[in-house]
């Protein structure tokens, strides 16, 4: 039996280093004006609610959970897991509106707001995953979340995944014909539940895009 659960919680503390990385600063601290703008925007985004729907699913042999073949990258991510969490989460149109408003005021403010909101939805998802980790229970460990479009996990999984989670109805998440999620600051993902602490590489080191401009 699998329940669909709703989750709402403020984004919470945003990692400023992530904001600066999205702004193309790598590991550097940008200039004081950028920092000041980013600070004020972080405060606004940290207060936004992240709305999410999640469920817990047993993982069938071959990692086939009705969403098509997992592919090599996801299989590597899920090796050893017998269960997964699936979730969809969004900052809603409030974030899109904020970015567009800032962009109308100045382009610099626009790109900073976009970076802050990107870091914000990730921060919110980190909190959601911490919550899921508690729910997973003692002796269970979460793998890094894995989204359609990562590696060879096809982006076409997006539609069945969102359908399974009733994400359109419950969160108002829609897909464009090109499978972009709208509102834009949204995340859908699969999170492996492992019986052992994983050696899975996280973040940039775990990624195959070696020439990514955001890699640090």
């Amino acid at each position, binding site marked *: 039996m699998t329940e669909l659960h709703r989750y709402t919680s403020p984004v919470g503390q945003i990692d400023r280093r992530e904001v600066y990385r999205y702004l193309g600063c790598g590991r550097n601290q940008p200039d004081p004006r950028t920092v000041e703008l980013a600070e004020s925007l972080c405060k606004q985004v940290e207060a936004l609610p992240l709305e999410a729907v999640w469920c817990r699913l047993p993982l069938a042999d071959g990692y086939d959970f009705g969403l098509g073949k997992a592919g090599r990258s996801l299989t590597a991510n899920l090796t050893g897991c017998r269960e997964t969490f699936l979730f969809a989460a969004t900052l809603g149109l409030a974030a899109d509106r904020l970015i567009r408003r800032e962009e*109308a005021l100045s382009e610099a403010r626009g790109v900073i707001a976009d970076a802050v909101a990107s870091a914000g939805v990730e921060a919110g998802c980190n909190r959601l995953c911490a919550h899921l980790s508690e729910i997973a229970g003692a002796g269970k460990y979460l793998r890094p979340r894995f989204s359609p479009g990562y590696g060879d996990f096809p982006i076409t999984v997006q539609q069945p995944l969102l359908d399974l989670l009733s994400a359109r109805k419950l969160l108002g998440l829609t897909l464009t014909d090109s499978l972009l999620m709208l509102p834009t600051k949204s995340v859908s993902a699969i999170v492996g539940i492992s019986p052992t602490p994983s050696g899975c590489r996280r973040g940039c080191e775990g990624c195959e895009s070696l020439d990514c401009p955001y890699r640090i």
Partner: protein
Amino acid sequence: MTIREKLQTGFLFYDGGMGSMLQSAGLPAGELPERWNLTHADVIVGIHKAYYEAGADIACANTFGANALKFPAEGEFSLRAVIEGAINCAKAARAQCTHLGRPLYIALDVGPCGKLLKPFGTLDFEDAVSLFKQTIEIGVQVGVDLIAIETMNDSYETKAAVLAAKEVCDLPIFVTNVYDQSAKLMTGATPEAMVALLEGLSVDAVGMNCSLGPKQMEEIFPRLADVASLPLVVVPNAGLPRLEGDRTVYDVTPDDFADSMVTLAKAGARVLGGCCGTTPAHIAKLRERVAELIPVPLTEKRRTVISSGTHALTFDGDPRLIGERINPTGKSKLKAALREKNLSYILREAAGQQEAGAQALDINVGLPEIDEPEMMAEVVTEVQGICDLPLQIDTSDPVAMERGLRLCNGQPLVNSVNGKTAVMDAIFPLVQKYGGVVIGLTLDEDGIPATAEGRVAIAHRILDTAARYGIGAHRIIIDPLALTISADQSAALVTLETIRILHAEGIRTSLGLSNVSFGLPNREAINSTFFALALENGLSAAIMNPYSAGMMNTYHAFRALHGFDTGCMEFIEKSVALGSTATAPTAAAAVAEEGSLSLLQNAICKGLRDDTATAAKAMLESGTAPLALINEEIVPALDRVGKRFEEKTLFLPQLLMSAEAAKAAFDEVKAAMPAGENGNKYTIVIATVHGDIHDIGKNIVRTLLENYGYRMVDLGRDVPPQTIVDAAIRENARIVALSALMTTTIPAMEETIRLLREQAPDCKIAVGGAVLTQDYADKMGADFYGRDAMETVRYAESLL
């Protein structure tokens, strides 16, 4: 008895869930439920019959997802067949239920189309209207008793569906929206905002359905009941969904469901039913328990309220500020922006006024040489993408007015009518259809009366005429007109007296303030004092400049003095904000660092927009030639910043701040150029490709190139390949710059390149965007791949 009559006198019962019943009957996950109208008609008839027998008055035909996006013309079943099938199933069930001896109705069920509307999504508002019309036209032809628009979680899409229904038929329209636990639609609208919008559109009943269980609806429902004059609909789920295997199940029992529904009926619900997970057993219990109650009487709330896509704004004593800045009268920069279709200037005014404290925005784009209806449509759409304030549609052109009212995502202010019969006859029918709170000016065929009594008489005439169109007095705000005191020193007194009389009669007033000081020095002193006097006489709203510190001070002080500002918190906050600006270090001090550069170059390097403009202006005035200013000052400064960006000692936000500063200098240069010259190097067409709606990256490239003196033709985002090609040819573009951020939109980029090579072979093609690599760019046959904005600038320069 008709449905409209029944709504006035008693309860009406909807049926329960259809989708969840179909799942129980074996509908596989992923199959469109509407297919079953044709493949399993007996099952559908059975479900309707069970609901009628359980006590439903209204069966919602199985047409929730019946639209042309889900049932395209080339598909297995035609849209018409699916809808016909659905309604015929409901009719068959009704024919089998004549023994029930009560009137049974069939609703055409209209659900969301599944796409997000522009400007946040890709679906055009008018395309959404057409999509809904297609469905509703078929439904009405086959024969239904009402239109049930339901499970809408976007206020704008809700409006599109309602307009479609109104334009197709005269049947009753019931509208229910999906609220989350914080009582908001996914797109942010509150219950108060939805009631304002839907009552403006004159639907027959409003309410909520789906997503929440009955207990959770009990908490939110009173907010609807407090503000709505219309009958209210409540259609909860049987609790929250959970998956069992691949089935979705719900837990609230018929008894618990009915308990909550009794509470909801006592709180004012008139139309009650069940959504996902409810069964005939739920509806039977619901009817049994609720039918014996006496419905709460309907009451007219008579609220003066406007709304945006997120919230409602009432005119209830606390004075309101309407930002006046988007109005070309006397503003040469805005005029130029309108002529050049420079929306970014207009959007900055919108965002800036909101930041300064405006609570609604006046939108006036009237200029003799532009297509006003078209511009109104564009500005209203785009402003709603960046700003969530209610709008005031301000035009004397009824066609532009209609476009504005139609596209407004909420209940707008309508600016304006006056005592002239012809004007009222042109505008009131629009308000009847689209809703709105109307500003009525106290002038008529004979001009502006010199006395307060004369103006009050016109106000009464406007109210009487509005009433004949079914527009209540609470939906009229009178503007008693402020005339210039330099011409007539009793002018302000007459205006103030008119406000006083109207206020005493309970009539709302609004005033365009600044005209009063025309022709005088120190206008702000006159304006803000006049504002204070008008407020004291009962003014409900002012159309004003929110950037004026004097006016804002008056406003905040007035609210504090009149007990509208709890703990004077807002006054304190605003005063602190003002104080801090005064003590901020001066820009000149900040500029003083890089000594070797000119003042102008320094300001550009520092990204100081205002200082850059001032310095550029000074240099031009002291004789520097415009072209020299570009080539010897602006471009070298930008190059300096660009080089540091390339060396990674300075980052994107600073690069952009410098670019924006340079743009301010450019604007000065343009103004100083002899007519006919523009200093442009050549034309570049830029666009985000079809299917992609990311435009920040593209905008960065556009801004930088603009600053290097290229003429940029920005086609926006989600642009079809042929549109890009046509523009390249029409504009004689040297470069077409294309942006794509998703792997799924790369095919659109490839197609665009293919068409360009065919039809505009002389054009160079530059591509960029997060998913692209040099490899990809080569494979697609692009001439250049730009990893960042500066690289693209360097490429453009290399073609000179």
